[in-house]
């Protein structure tokens, strides 16, 4: 059954179809929520809230955008809201000019990205680095570079113009590379 058919059935009250939609997207939703908040418990809570929202609003879903886009938007709004009410200084913007052109900041890294899943130390370093990135920059980086969405889709989800997405992405990439460079660089 296609996704469109599942949505139509769900809208007419078919609980099995709704369950199929949940199963189809639960891993994506959970992972994206985790990637933003870097905490499994909070990711689980966000996943539950996202699907509660979906169940409640599926009747109004008009199919103007993809269901996945709609789910990413719900997760994004939930995490932005949590960040705004959180105690951390999440809303500091990045420094205007990170000095990326120091020679000492440019070196090779001793890391294999294909082995991330088995390297707990690297996971910790990745968590630490991205946790320093303000939530709105983090979301743009994750949507574009990790989830592989287009600039336009990212803008739609994060409620940003295309130039604003590009600017945040540019700075988020520099910032994360810089943070990881501090712990992963080595001299050959």
């Amino acid at each position, binding site marked *: 059954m296609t996704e469109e058919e599942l949505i139509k059935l769900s809208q007419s009250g078919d*609980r099995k179809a709704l369950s199929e939609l949940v199963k189809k997207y639960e891993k994506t939703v959970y992972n994206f929520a985790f990637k933003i908040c870097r905490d*499994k418990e909070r990711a689980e809570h966000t996943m539950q809230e996202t699907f509660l929202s979906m169940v409640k609003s599926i009747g109004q879903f008009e199919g103007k955008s993809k269901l996945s886009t709609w789910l990413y938007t719900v997760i994004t709004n939930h995490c932005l809201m949590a960040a705004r009410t959180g105690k951390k200084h999440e809303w500091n913007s990045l420094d205007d000019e990170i000095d990326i052109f120091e020679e000492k900041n440019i070196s090779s890294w001793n890391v294999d990205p294909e082995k991330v899943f088995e390297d707990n130390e690297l996971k910790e370093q990745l968590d630490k680095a991205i946790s320093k990135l303000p939530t709105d920059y983090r979301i743009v*980086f994750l949507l574009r570079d990790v989830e592989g969405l287009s600039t336009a889709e990212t803008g739609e989800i994060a409620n940003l113009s295309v130039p604003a997405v590009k600017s945040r992405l540019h700075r988020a990439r520099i910032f994360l590379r810089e943070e990881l460079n501090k712990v992963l660089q080595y001299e050959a």
Partner: protein
Amino acid sequence: MKLKEIKCKKVIDFLCDNIEIDFDKECCEKIKNHVHECEMCKKYFDTLKITAKCYQNYNVDLSKESHQKLINKLGLEE
């Protein structure tokens, strides 16, 4: 010591906007040649790509217990 060549700054700026670029298909000769010849820019570009790749490959499993809690919370059946 700061890199003296202004070209590196411009190239790195360009690379930060275009990490998914295919040099052979989409890039002007100037940038392509510079990255091939400049060790600094090549290292910078490689580490930019590694950064994205690491985060792409860092996924978490949804446990059966979490899945079941979700289904129960939504009042759905398997």
